[in-house]
């Protein structure tokens, strides 16, 4: 059996805060649920469409453009994450670290220039 020793740093306040925040949200939403009136009228049973009769439903496939943005976001987020540790330890890494990061950014920019040239970021 592995026994874990308590860490010197205390993260418990974050947990406390989480419980307080959840408590606030739950109490508020329960209160409004219990206090508010309940009236079911036929108008409320359909989605709001500016008073026009509802056409079809909202489960439409969406444009692939949004999906492309999501993919690019994930890829660039991973690249950006590599820069966080570099930035925090910038002075110790010095010129060598700067050159390494420069190479890294060149790869990033090559991909970036490619998608701009291909027009993947143009919203028609």
């Amino acid at each position: 059996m592995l026994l874990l020793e308590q860490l010197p740093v205390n993260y418990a306040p974050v947990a406390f805060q989480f419980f307080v925040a959840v408590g606030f949200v739950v109490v508020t939403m329960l209160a409004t649920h219990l206090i508010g009136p309940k009236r079911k009228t036929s108008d409320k049973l359909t989605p709001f469409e500016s008073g026009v009769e509802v056409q079809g439903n909202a489960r439409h496939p969406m444009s692939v453009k949004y999906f492309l943005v999501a993919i690019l976001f994930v890829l660039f987020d991973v690249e950006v994450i590599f820069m966080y540790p570099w930035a925090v330890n910038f002075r110790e890494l010095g010129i060598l670290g700067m050159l390494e990061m420069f190479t890294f950014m060149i790869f990033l920019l090559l991909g970036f220039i490619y998608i701009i040239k291909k027009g993947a970021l143009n919203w028609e």
Partner: protein
Amino acid sequence: MSETLNYWLVIVGILFVLLNIAAFLIWVERRMLALWQDRLGPNRAGPFGLLIILADTLKLFFKEDWIPPFADRHVFVIAPAVIVISVLLSFAIIPFAPAIQIVDLNIGLLFFLGMSSLGVYSIVLGGWASNNKYSLLGALRGASQMISYEVFMGLSLMGVVMLSGSFSLRTIVEAQKDYWFVLLQPVGFVIFFIAGIAETHRLPFDIPEAESELVAGFHSEYSGMKFGMFFIGEYLGITLISSITVALFFGGWLGPAFLPPLAWFAIKTAGFILFFILLRASLPRPRYDQLMEYGWKILLPLTLLNLLVTGGIILFLNQP
């Protein structure tokens, strides 16, 4: 045991103050907008119309808590809770004053970035669960906007991290004893503030809500305090971005000694909150394609350039 009790008191106290600020901002925003647009604003209930806050809150509580039969019940209820909880958690790392901070994490900034990236779910899930076409469109736009601006939101803060050599907000504030980082990182500050507006989807970047075309977007179908949650989340988000900006770029609690540190922090944060409202009063809403292209094609390369230039200058100055 008394230490634990102390934690609880500080946490409950801070959350209580924050929620009151969020409620107070309803009145502030309406009065300031009125001032800038040459109107009176709410002035009937109580002194200066201050009781409008109470009236608004009570009204929200006594509204019908409607869960549409066509919606996805569970996701519909979870979505508004997510944004309030994630924003409230972000406040854990903010140093309000030397003695008032819930926890000083050595990854403080990353904690903030993680929590703000969780805020996306509130919008995308709320809009999806509503099963309404307007909501779905608002959610898609909102989520795409938020994730696009999130890419360089973290990156724009890295200049500050390079200067102070730490992710801990307390260390960053203390590193600004001689001069505020806004003087060394003006580009980083501007980009972070723009990204912050996009993250809280405030005007001029309120395209997910866009009253005139999407009738409130992702929260069209919400009522009562569930709608109130989105509202509180937005005001808390403004307060969060303002206080992070103050802590990172404007010296946090540091200031001349005639006022206590907490007062300096509060004054600077209030200034940025007013600036948020001024933006709403003065700027038109851009088109969606303009917003996205501006983010990806201008701000992202600019952030990278800022990082490289900052690094180059620091290395140049540090040379023996």
